């Protein structure tokens, strides 16, 4: 192996050794790959930013700083949480509590799933907008937890015998997601495109309909819950991701 090939292999190391640097002193191409050569070479200086262009950028940056007030990220998260929770409660009042009042209902399990969904709608929304991406992505576990919770809370009795009888549940999930999802999209435009974060926002926002249906829908069969509650919920969240990709981004901050 030639000295240049050895040098090129050592480029991947976290630090080049003395032998590499000694070789680079005598070899033009290898020397050009050293970071100090790139930073200080006349080519870098000649093609770097000139002071006029930098000054123009500085003016634009200061203008943006003056025109945009500081908005702590958790305030925007709280706003989304309030929108989600308010939507869930309004839809719950509108559709009623038929399941909760049914003698076949497992009320403790319904309550537990209700709490899970409410926490998802509120704290989940805040976490989904957290600059810490690990916390935001942790919300993706909802895609597993919520279906499991819904099926476990179901009484196993199928009451909706036809597609037409089951369809209103899907409509509740989709229509009640509109306001939370649109709010989520507006907020997501203010940060860099991140598909997983967008999915997390979609899952938490679209859970408003699931919350309402948890206390109303009397069909507790796994087939109905997964096909007419969970599936539209997942599809709405996926749709948010697709729409977000097509929207222009206002800020590239993660």
């Amino acid at each position: 192996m030639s000295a240049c090939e050895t040098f090129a292999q050592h480029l991947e190391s976290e630090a080049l050794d003395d032998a590499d640097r000694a070789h680079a002193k005598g070899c033009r191409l290898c020397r050009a790959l050293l970071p100090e050569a790139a930073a200080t070479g006349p080519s870098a200086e000649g093609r770097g930013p000139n002071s006029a262009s930098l000054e123009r950028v500085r003016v634009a940056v200061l203008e943006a700083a003056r025109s945009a007030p500081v908005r702590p990220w958790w305030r925007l998260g709280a706003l989304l949480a309030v929108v989600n929770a308010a939507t869930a409660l309004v839809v719950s009042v509108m559709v009623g509590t038929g399941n909760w009042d049914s003698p076949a209902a497992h009320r403790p399990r319904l309550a537990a799933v209700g709490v899970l969904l409410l926490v998802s709608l509120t704290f989940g929304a805040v976490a989904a907008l957290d600059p810490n991406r690990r916390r935001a992505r942790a919300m993706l576990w909802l895609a597993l937890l919520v279906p499991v919770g819904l099926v476990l809370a179901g009484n196993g009795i199928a009451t909706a015998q036809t597609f037409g009888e089951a369809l209103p549940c899907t409509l509740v999930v989709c229509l009640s997601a509109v306001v939370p999802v649109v709010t989520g999209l507006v907020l997501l435009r203010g940060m860099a495109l991140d598909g997983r974060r967008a999915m997390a926002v979609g899952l938490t926002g679209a859970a408003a309909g699931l919350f309402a249906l948890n206390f109303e829908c009397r069909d507790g069969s796994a087939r109905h819950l997964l096909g007419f509650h969970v599936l539209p919920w997942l599809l709405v969240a996926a749709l948010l991701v697709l729409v977000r990709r097509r929207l222009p981004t206002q800020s590239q901050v993660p």
Partner: protein
Amino acid sequence: MERFVQGDEKGISELFTRHAGPLHGFVRRMVGDAADDVVQTTFVSISRSRGRYQRGAPFRPWLYAVAANAARDHLRRNRYEEHVSPAALPELVAEPEPLADPGLSRVVEAALAQLPANQREAVVLHRFEGFSFRQIADLLRVSETAVKVRAHRGYERLRVLLAHLRAES
């Protein structure tokens, strides 16, 4: 940055003075002649969304994360036009070597421009900006393994391109 988040405008001005020049070098290697626009997008994004800065976190990796996002967004919307055409590469290498070597950095940049964007990003951040693979993984929001794979492939292609140039010269 923390002063800027609390409302002190001088904070962003000082950050700009300190970081804009070196950042411009990174961005130029990523997007070529559109570097001015992308640097502006980077700092304007930071100004508008300073509420998303995590207090206590080091500023430089965050700045480069924003710049990498801005560069990627630019490349998604625009084709990256190499500022040196591939056909000109052998002529630049064959130039007699002066004490200073203005053509050679352009050769390296032209070779970098031949790499796919994600490999170029990993190589530039690692080799020219001095970030470790761990830091690159954090700022690009991918796993460290993914960064190492991209960097390895990028270095391999760079090696092949530069070896080809060396042989021709």
